[in-house]
C-alpha cells in the first residue's frame, strides 16, 4: 500500500510567490507555467488597462488590495508607483472622522503644489490645471473602476491557486506526464501509473 502524503515543494512555492507560474516552470512544467503566468498577468494587466493604475491602491482600496497582493511583487511595485508618483499629500477633511494629512489622488481641477511648511506636495484647486502640475492620471470611476479592480483581484486569487499547486505535488498523476505532448510520452506515463497501482495492491 502506498502513502498519499504530499511533500511540500518550498522552492517552487517561493518562486511562484515571486512570479506567477515560476513554480511550475521550476518543477519542469514549462508549458503549464507559461500558461498560468499568462492567465494571471492577463487578468492583472487587463485590470490596469481597464481601470488604470487607480485599481491598485493599498490605501484607498485596502480590502481589494489584499486580493491583488497575491499576484506578488508586481502588485506591490504597481502600488508603490501609484502611491509615490501619482498621488500627493492633502489634508483629510474632519468629516471623514480621521482628520489629518494623507496622500490621495488629485481631482481633474486640482494641481500639485509644494508646501514648505510640511515639505510635502499637496493638491489645491487650480484655475488651469493643464498648464501646471495637473494630476498625472485620471481617477477611474463607476464600472471601469469596478471591473478593473475585479480583474486585478481575481488575478491574485487565481495566483493563490497556482502557488498552492506549486507548493503541493500533484495527486493527479500530472507529474508523471510533465508537459509531454507526444503519444509515446503519455503511454509511458500510463504504464508507469499502472505499474505503481499494481505495486500498491
Amino acid at each position, binding site marked *: 500500500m502506498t502513502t498519499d502524503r504530499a511533500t511540500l515543494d518550498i522552492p517552487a512555492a517561493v518562486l511562484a510567490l515571486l512570479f*506567477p*507560474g515560476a513554480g*511550475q516552470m521550476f518543477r519542469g512544467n514549462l*508549458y*503549464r*507555467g507559461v*500558461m*498560468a503566468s*499568462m*492567465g*494571471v498577468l*492577463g*487578468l492583472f*494587466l*487587463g485590470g*490596469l*488597462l*481597464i*481601470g*488604470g*493604475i*487607480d485599481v491598485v491602491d493599498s490605501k484607498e482600496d485596502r480590502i481589494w488590495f489584499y486580493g491583488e497582493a497575491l499576484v506578488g511583487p508586481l502588485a506591490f511595485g504597481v502600488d508603490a508607483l501609484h502611491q509615490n508618483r*501619482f498621488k500627493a499629500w492633502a489634508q483629510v477633511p474632519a468629516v471623514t472622522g480621521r482628520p489629518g494629512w494623507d496622500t490621495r489622488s488629485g481631482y*481633474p481641477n486640482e494641481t500639485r503644489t509644494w508646501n514648505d511648511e510640511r515639505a510635502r506636495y499637496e493638491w489645491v484647486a487650480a484655475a488651469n*490645471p*493643464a498648464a501646471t*502640475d*495637473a*494630476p*498625472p*492620471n*485620471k481617477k*477611474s*470611476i*463607476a*464600472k*471601469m*473602476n469596478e*471591473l*478593473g479592480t*475585479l*480583474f486585478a483581484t*481575481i*488575478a491574485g486569487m*487565481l*495566483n493563490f*491557486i*497556482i502557488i498552492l*499547486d506549486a507548493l503541493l505535488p500533484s495527486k*493527479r*498523476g*500530472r507529474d508523471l*506526464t510533465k*508537459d509531454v*505532448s507526444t503519444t509515446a510520452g*503519455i503511454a509511458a506515463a500510463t504504464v508507469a501509473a499502472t505499474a505503481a497501482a499494481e505495486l500498491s495492491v
Partner: protein
Amino acid sequence: MSTLAYTPFIDPIAAHEYWFALLIPLAFFIAVGYKAVRTVDMRTYWRQVLTFTIQIVGGIILLGIGAYVLIAFAIPSLAPMPGS
C-alpha cells in the same frame, strides 16, 4: 503634466457603454490560468479553456436572466406596488 492624453495602464478606458463585453476576457483569462494547473492531459488544454470560458459566460448570463425574471416578474406578481 496634462491629463488630456490617454495613457494605457495609467488612465481608465472609456468602455462604460459596453462594460458587459469585458466579461469575456475575464472568463477567458480565468480559464487560461485555472486550466493550466488543473488539466491532466495538456493536449486537451485549449479545448478545456474554451469549454470553461463558455461555461463561465453562460453561467453568468443565466444568472442575469434569473435575476431579471425575479425582479421584473416574480417579485411584482408576489408583492404588487400600490397603483400598479
